[in-house]
Every structure is written in structure tokens, then in C-alpha cells.
């Protein structure tokens, strides 16, 4: 830890003479919990941000990347407090500054774009009101008209169309991207010198992410605002920032120029991160299969992806979807309704042992298809045949039996397991529901499944909240496999996981597919992941399948404009990698 600081200080000594850093953090320590038994989460973090510079702090959840920046602006949640070190803002100490003075600084000098656009806008006030509030609080403009004008301006700058009309709307009328634009607008309302963007686009679709980030980049470079990106996405960080800070368990393990770090990662953790990042790995796979993966790579994803490829077209059709449509009635006005075509004319076939990826942005209808295939929603038109059997009109006993061949794994690893049931009971539940075996054989099956998903058997008596997201997702996979189904429907099953864990789960899925001959319907928004796991891809846009081909065809020779956009929007795709 001491070495960290010393070396960092040396860095500054060399460079300090040229330009004064805007923000200078030295040996920052933050602890949570009781005074007597503090739980230190930052162990002496130090870095500089210069005017106009874009810095990205990269790390997995729990690495301390958000905590660092929250400590800087004194917004640590709960019992969090700075226990050591210093934070200099233009040479002035601001660690543990009185609240009032800090409030002066926040917003005006340091803007913040928070992580979750869904919960960071107050649902009971109109967007306009909230932007105006920020403008008034920062004293950028005064007078009703002026404030309003500035608010419209800010929203327009943030790339919101029809900003004047949108001002009267409420957050629930905004899409995720629009909300994030509004938040960026609020963050930049006072032309701060530093903008902290905490995972600003992690909840957004890739194409929206690209547009929002492009826009943010343009705005900040015009005004010379320095930006600190907090992100888990290495590709995004490398693409958007000149300087990269890699954090791991409350320490900075590596920092420096982005490209250099990506091309010559030095620290074992960074190496691991670089080789597991799907957005970057996707460049490698297929380009030259003879090149072995990095020696530090724990998961041989490239090799796995290679192995699954020859399976295309093998086996009989397991899922046949033809001309599938789903219409929702949207309430319009007080009376009457409007048809909303969530899915229309979807046709595809998935063969045994094959992985079909349904890719699309939110609202493209991919999850609706998943729900219809899982028989959780009834199709409005078209048909779904599972293992050759028509599912329309199936009910009662037959539907119940069908569920044995078809199992889901859902997106949210925190929501998909009942917190009050232990892991053993959770995995056992499908066996109980379907009356498979007796108590002893069920227990044996649970242990077998735990082995299959590479979790220790002792976990059977544990509860979900003791597990990490990746471990929970493995439990969900084990539950899905309990009835020995032929098909797994994976709805964004790895989207919520950190890259390393995501790689591990994908690895597991590929292995299970190989061993058990499973058929996967893989629903995801992340094209980078698709490359690693899928044999064939359906690209969806607004309820329609716009392109359907093998994974290689889609990636190497996309036919549709939309697919090309999606591919181009994968962050970091253009960066050449050199894993040593």
C-alpha cells in the first residue's frame, strides 16, 4: 500500500511543474461500519485529474471505484467516512469539508451523473422542474424565464429532442436513454470543471450508449470539462478515456494511458480482466484461432466458442417458432385502446445442441418471445412447437409436462432465487413440483447438480443472500437443469455479472451444453457475449427479426444497417489488443 502512494507521488513530482491538477487524491482511505471495528474499503488510493482530461476508473463491483469518487464529493452512503489521506481540489483540501462548503462545490464545480437513471429522477416532479431546480441551486441563471430557457438549452445540449415540450413530462414518460440524457443535462447544467459519470450508461442499450457517450464527449471537450468515468466496462473505458485507473479490492492495481494498459497489461488482475472482457475478446475469436489465449486467462473462451461452432444444423429441431406475434393493448386516453405489436412475424428454428441468440435492444420484443416460448405469455398469433409438439392450446397436465423439457434462467441473479429458501431446497423445488424421485434421490440429485455447476456441496444448506451474483446465477442454472430438460431459455442470464464472473458462467454454460447436449435460447442485448456463446443469431428490432444468420456471418458480414450499428456500438471494438 505504501508503495502505491510513493510511486504515485513520484509521478506527480515529475509532472507537477507543468500544469496544476484539478483534482488530486492522495492515500485516500475510506471505512464503513462502527468506529471501533471499521471495515476499510479503500486502502490508500491516489491519482490526479488534470483540466480537460478524461479518466476512467475501471473495476468490478465492490472494487471501490464508486466509493472513491463518492468520497471525493463527500457523498459516502451510511456509515462511510474518510479515515485518511487527502483530496485536493485545485490545491485546496476538500476531504471532510463542512457540508455547506461542499454543497457549494458540488454541482457548480463538480457535476455528477449518477448510475441509475431509473431511480435518480424524482418521479413526482416533471423533468423540467428538476432541471430548473439544479440550475437555480447552482446559481447559473436567475429569473423564471432565464432559468427555463437555460433548462431547455441544457436538455437540448444533452441531446433531448423537443426539449421544450419534454420539460412538462414526468420521468416515467421518458425512456432510459432520455432519462440519462436529462441527468447528464443536470450534471452539466452549471458548466462544472469536473464531471463524475458513475456508470452513466450501464442501464442503456449499446446504440443509445454510444450516442449518449458521443454526445457527452462532444459536450465536455467543447467546454473543456474534465471527466471521471466510473465503469465496469474495460472496452468503454479504453475507448472514452485517455487515462485508465484499474481498481481491485480497494487498491489501484494499475494506472496509465488507456491503450498502453490494454495492450500491455502488467498486473495479473488487469491481464485477467483484459482477457475476459467479451467486448475485447470478441475481436480475437475467429480472427485467428491458432493464436492461443493469454496464459493468464482463466477461461479458455475462445477455444470453447470454437468448439461449439461445428454444431450448426446438427440435431432435430427443438424450438420451432413460426410467424409468432404478440399484441398488447395499450390504454389510450380514458377510453379505448391501441394495439401495440410487441412481436410480429417472428420465425426461427433452434436445433438440438445448438445455441440461438436473440439479440436486440430493450423493447425489441426479445424477452416477450422468451416468455411465449416458456408459456408464460400466450401468443396472439403464430405457433411455437417445442420438440415437435404444438404448444398452442396446451393446458393443464400437458403444459405441466412440457415444462420439464423447457427451463428458464432469468436475468437478475438477486431476484430469481427465493431469499427464504436455502440453496438445496431451491434446486430441489422443480423435482418436488414434478414429483420426481423420493427424498433421498432428490437430495442426491441436488448434490450432483451442485457439482455440475461447480459449487461446493456445502452450499446446499446456505441461503441466497450469502452468495455472489455469479454464484446465484449458477444456482439458477442448477435449478434449471434439475429436471434434465432439453432446452434452457436464458433471459439475459449473464448481463448483470462482472466480466470475470460472466466469463466463468459462460464457460460453465458452454461446458454443460457440450456434456448434456442442451439447446439454448439465449436472450441478450450484448452482442459481444453472443459471439462467445451462440451458433446462430436473430437480430431483433421493434418486434421484428431483421437479420438471422450464423454468428460468424452476422459479425463478419452484417446485411442490415441496424445490425451494423449494433456491432459498431460495442465499446472498445476498434481497439487492437495485445495481451502479453
Amino acid at each position, binding site marked *: 500500500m505504501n508503495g502505491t502512494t510513493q510511486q504515485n507521488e513520484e509521478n506527480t513530482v515529475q509532472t507537477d511543474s507543468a500544469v496544476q491538477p484539478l483534482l488530486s487524491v492522495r492515500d485516500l482511505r475510506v471505512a464503513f461500519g462502527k468506529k471501533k471495528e471499521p471495515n476499510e474499503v479503500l486502502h490508500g488510493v491516489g491519482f490526479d485529474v488534470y483540466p480537460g482530461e478524461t479518466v476512467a476508473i475501471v473495476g468490478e463491483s465492490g472494487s471501490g471505484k464508486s466509493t472513491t469518487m463518492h468520497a471525493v464529493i463527500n457523498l459516502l452512503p451510511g456509515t462511510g467516512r474518510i479515515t485518511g489521506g487527502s483530496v485536493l481540489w485545485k490545491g485546496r483540501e476538500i476531504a471532510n469539508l463542512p457540508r455547506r462548503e461542499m454543497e457549494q462545490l458540488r454541482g457548480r464545480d463538480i457535476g455528477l451523473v449518477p448510475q441509475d437513471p431509473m431511480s435518480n429522477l424524482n418521479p413526482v416532479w416533471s423533468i423540467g422542474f428538476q432541471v430548473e431546480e439544479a440550475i437555480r441551486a447552482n446559481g447559473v441563471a436567475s429569473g423564471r424565464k432565464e432559468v427555463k430557457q437555460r433548462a431547455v438549452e441544457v436538455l437540448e445540449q444533452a441531446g433531448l429532442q423537443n426539449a421544450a415540450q419534454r420539460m412538462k413530462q414526468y420521468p416515467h414518460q421518458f425512456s432510459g436513454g432520455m432519462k440519462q440524457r436529462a441527468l447528464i443535462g443536470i450534471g452539466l447544467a452549471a458548466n462544472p470543471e469536473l464531471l463524475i459519470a458513475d456508470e452513466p450508461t450501464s442501464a442503456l442499450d449499446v446504440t443509445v450508449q454510444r450516442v449518449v457517450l458521443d454526445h457527452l464527449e462532444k459536450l465536455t471537450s467543447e467546454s473543456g470539462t474534465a471527466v471521471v468515468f466510473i465503469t465496469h466496462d474495460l472496452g468503454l473505458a479504453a475507448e472514452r478515456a485517455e487515462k485508465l485507473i484499474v481498481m481491485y479490492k480497494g487498491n489501484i492495481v494499475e494506472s496509465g494511458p488507456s491503450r498502453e494498459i490494454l495492450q500491455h497489461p502488467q*498486473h495479473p488482475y488487469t491481464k485477467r480482466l483484459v482477457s475476459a472482457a467479451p467486448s475485447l475478446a470478441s475481436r480475437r475469436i475467429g480472427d485467428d484461432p491458432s493464436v492461443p489465449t493469454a496464459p493468464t486467462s482463466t477461461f479458455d473462451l475462445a477455444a470453447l466458442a470454437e468448439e461449439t461452432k461445428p454444431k450448426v444444423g446438427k440435431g432435430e429441431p427443438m424450438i420451432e417458432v413460426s410467424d409468432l406475434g404478440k399484441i398488447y393493448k395499450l390504454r389510450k386516453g380514458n377510453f379505448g385502446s391501441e394495439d401495440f405489436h410487441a412481436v410480429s412475424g417472428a420465425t426461427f428454428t433452434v436445433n438440438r445442441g445448438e445455441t440461438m441468440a436473440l439479440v436486440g435492444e430493450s423493447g425489441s420484443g426479445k424477452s416477450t418471445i422468451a416468455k411465449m416460448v416458456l408459456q408464460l405469455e400466450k401468443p396472439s398469433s403464430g405457433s411455437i412447437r417445442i420438440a415437435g409438439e404444438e404448444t398452442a392450446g396446451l393446458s393443464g397436465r400437458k403444459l405441466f409436462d412440457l415444462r420439464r423439457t423447457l427451463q428458464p434462467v432469468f436475468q437478475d441473479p438477486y431476484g430469481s432465487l427465493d431469499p*427464504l429458501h436455502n440453496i438445496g431446497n431451491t434446486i430441489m423445488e422443480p423435482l418436488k413440483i414434478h414429483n420426481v424421485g423420493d427424498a433421498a434421490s432428490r437430495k442426491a440429485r441436488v448434490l450432483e447438480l451442485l457439482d455440475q455447476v461447480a459449487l461446493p456441496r456445502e452450499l446446499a444448506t446456505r441461503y441466497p443472500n450469502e452468495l455472489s451474483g455469479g454464484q446465484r446465477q449458477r444456482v439458477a442454472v442448477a435449478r434449471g437443469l434439475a429436471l434434465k430438460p432439453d432446452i434452457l431459455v436464458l433471459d439475459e442470464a449473464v448481463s448483470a455479472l462482472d466480466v470475470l464472473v460472466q466469463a466463468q458462467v459462460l464457460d460453465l454454460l458452454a461446458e454443460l451444453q457440450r456434456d448434456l447436449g442442451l439447446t439454448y435460447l439465449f436472450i441478450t442485448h450484448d452482442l459481444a457475449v453472443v459471439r462467445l456463446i451462440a451458433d446462430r443469431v436473430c437480430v431483433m428490432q421493434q418486434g421484428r427479426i431483421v437479420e438471422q444468420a450464423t454468428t460468424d456471418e452476422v459479425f463478419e458480414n452484417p446485411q442490415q444497417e441496424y445490425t451494423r450499428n449494433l456491432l459498431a456500438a460495442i465499446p472498445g471494438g476498434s481497439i487492437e489488443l495485445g495481451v502479453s
Partner: protein
Amino acid sequence: MPEPKHPIPEHFVAPFDETPVAAVDAVKIDEKKSNLWLDAWRDMRRRPMFWISALIILVVLLVSLFPTLFTQVDPRAADLEFTKAGPSDGHPLGFNNQGQDIYARIIYGTSTSVSVGLVVILMTFVIGTIMGALAGYFGGFVDTVISRVGDIFFSIPYILAAVIVMTVFSEHRNVFVISLAIGGFSWPVAARILRSEILQVKNADFVMASEALGLSRMKTLARHVLPNSLAPLIVATTLSLAAAIVAESVLSFLGVGLPAKDFISWGNDISAAQRDLRTAPMTLIYPSLALTITVLGFVMLGEVVRDALDPKARAQR
């Protein structure tokens, strides 16, 4: 990107030995088992308030079950010779206006209060759970009907309702009737609390997962949704036990509670003692004190349970 106006950053690498890299997603199984209820119990166990309230409640329960263990004096025996007499040997709290032993009456009155309290919360809990669960989980028409019926009950002040019920049943007043009068009008609160909780829980992925497994809706409700929704209702119920005990006393005080000739109750005694407030204040104060301590015990327990079941409150202590 703009022309860099700042120095080019150095490539810094932390010493490996100071930042060791652990296995990805390693499983920790050396820690204690934990889920909502286990954590809550562990948290409560450490709080003195829990033990104090548990002690009070235990004593109160003992007294109500075995009053003879605490006094040998007949609480009904009236000797006008001792009217409002002060404490004497074997009569630690003295006598009331009727010349009855105050201590004995408090001891024998406990079971009335406690049983009314328990019956009421049991009733609110059961009715509230059924109504709230059905309304929240099935929604739509069921929800509309249950919620509106609840609103009707809710709109009548329960004291007024209880007074009416007790007047109607003036001939057959007993513990069950008075509990019905109190509990019959307080379930809508319980139902509402549970309903709103269920509305949240039913959207969880694990509910959809169970449905996709083929579990029937009723079983999903009973096995997954309800257990995950009960915590706030349990807290509210624990707290309302105190309110029910007070309500019994209030009704008795108003003269529409349990008939004084058949039942010994704190409320009746408090009511009877108000005339002697000036001459013998202790006849009023002692039963009130018993009521206060009992209520305090249950309120404290409710608070502890609430804190223990709310992970946020736990983290902030």
C-alpha cells in the same frame, strides 16, 4: 479528443505482492448461515431491549395463566371494612372502594387483557393475511372487491364500531365478542400492509421462475410470495397487540366492555376507581401502571422486531 493540455500519465503498476489477486468468485462457506429470519434473530439476541421486553411478556403470560402462583387472595372478596385502606400485611397495594384487594385484582385482571390482546391480533393477522394476500396477488376484480370492503370497514372509527357491537351484544359480552368488536374493524390495516408488500414481491423473478416450473398460483403464493411479504405485517401486528389491550380497557372504561360483575379487567377497575381519584389515587394508579407496563413490553418487542427485520435500520445502528 481535444489536444491534451495535461501531462501524459505514467504507466503505474502496483506491486503484485501488495495487491494479491484472489480466485474469481470464490465461495465463502466459513461464515454463519444467514437469511432474513436468522439475521433478525441474531440481531435481536444482542439487544437488551429484546430481553427486557421478553421478560415483561413472560411474566405477564405467567401471571395470566397461573394467577394463583402470585396471590392467594380472592379478588372478588369484598370487605367494606377495608374500603380504600392502605397497604397491609398480605395486601401490598391496599384496597379499593369495594374493599377488594387491589393486587389480587390486578393479577386476575391480567388474563382478560392478555387474552383479548392475543385473540384480537390473531384475528387481524389471519383475516388481514387472507384478504391482503388475495387482493395483492390476484389483483383485478378480487382486489377491487376486497379493497373496497376494507375501505368500508376502515372508514368506521373502530371505537365507535366497537361500542355499537358491544351494545348489540350487551347480553352476551365475553372475551370473544369484545375481541371481535376490536379485531373485526382493524383487519383492513393489516390487509393493506400485506397487499402493498405482495404487490412488490409478486413481480420478483423467483415468482416467475416458480410459475415457469409449473407451480400453481396458489402454491406459489403460499410458498414463495407470502413468506417473503410477511415481515412488515408481523411488525405491525406485534405493535397492534398493545393497542388491542388498550382498546379493551377503553371499552371497559366506557362501560361497554366486559361486564364488571363477571370479568375482572384492568379497564373496569380503572373505570371504577376514577371516582376515588382524589381520596385514594392509588386505586387508579396501580391498575393503570399494570396496563402501562404490559403495553410497554409489547411495544418494545414490536420495535425490536421491526428493527431486526429491517436490514437498513440494522446497518445504521
